[in-house]
């Protein structure tokens, strides 16, 4: 978090209204002193973009299937290496985090469970970590 923001100048005195500053994306990452909901938001953005990227790569990689067993099975051997399995575990963290936080936002965002939103967030965070650990163990065991 930057200690001091660079201001958008407003020569305007009150009444000669300026515009709100734009594009301060870095503020999304200044969640150190913010609530858990802010961290959830940033996680959702980052994981979501990561997942879109993964989806595109995944679709391209699937084209290997058209090259028959030699193409695909070579890739699968590579994908079963510990390095790729670790990537899978990271991917899974993104999916679980994005999915459960998304579930929270979908519920809250339609006006359901709003009074319990903070508790819901904590419960889902714990649930997500548990699911992730179990899945990671399963992936590494093969």
């Amino acid at each position, binding site marked *: *978090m930057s*200690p*001091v*923001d*660079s*201001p*958008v*100048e*407003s*020569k*305007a*005195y*009150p*009444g*000669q*209204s*300026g*515009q*709100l*500053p*734009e*594009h*301060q*994306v870095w*503020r*999304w990452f*200044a969640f*150190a*002193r*913010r*609530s858990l*909901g*802010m961290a*959830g*938001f*940033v996680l*959702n953005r980052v994981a979501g973009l990561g997942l879109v990227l993964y989806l595109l790569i995944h679709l391209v990689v699937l084209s290997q299937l058209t090259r028959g067993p030699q193409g695909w099975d070579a890739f699968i051997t590579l994908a079963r290496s510990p390095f790729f399995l670790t990537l899978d575990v990271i991917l899974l963290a993104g999916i679980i985090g994005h999915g459960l936080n998304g579930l*929270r*936002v979908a519920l*809250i*965002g*339609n*006006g*359901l469970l*709003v*009074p319990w*939103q*903070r508790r819901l967030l904590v419960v889902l965070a714990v649930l997500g970590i548990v699911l992730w650990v179990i899945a990671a163990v399963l992936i590494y065991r093969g």
Partner: protein
Amino acid sequence: MWTITLKIARYKPGEARRIDTFQVSIDPERTILDAVEKVWAEQDRTLVFRHACHHASCGSCAMVVNGVEVLPCIKLIKSVTQPDGELMIEPLHNFPVIADLVADMGPFFERMLIVGMPIVGAADPLPKQEAEDFNRFDNCIECGACLSACPVVATDSGYLGPAALAAAYHQLSVSGDSLSKQAWDTLDGEHGLWRCHATFECSAVCPSNVDPAGKIMALRRRMTIERIRQMLGLGSRSK
């Protein structure tokens, strides 16, 4: 008496931003705003900041203290620091800065004007009180803290923002779901209530318990239910 250090973000048009450090000797039972006013009164008359009522009613003094939006007029020194402690004081985020701690509130009030909620409405009768037509000021004191804390406002300068959305919910509840065309278009448009990402930062920093995020969600629920009803041909629930 405590001696505390105030690090105040300074800015004058045409000059670079800097942080000035002031030592203030003050009773810890007094407020952050008192400390800032004391800096102005005793050390640096060039310091500008907004303030008026000193009891959380006017909403003009909102600032960012140690990274979080507060109303400094009701935050006691002893609640935010210790003897010899340090406070970092900045103007509201996400607003244009006129100078020092003075944010330009124009964009905020433009948003409030779109919705046009009256600042005075019906008061709930007190416990054991006969229901009479009492009125009262709304809880929202229009301080801008919610816009400063909102991650969507930070990147989308066209976003209607928490205060105006909460006002819209309030206004719809008392007006039988009617709003001006402009208000509807802004409210339900791409930069209206569907832009919110439910971080609840606005509700966390609101000094007046307005709970803008909760109201945005309630508004969405009503709009979604209404949409589904009308899609299913059940007719409108509103008047």
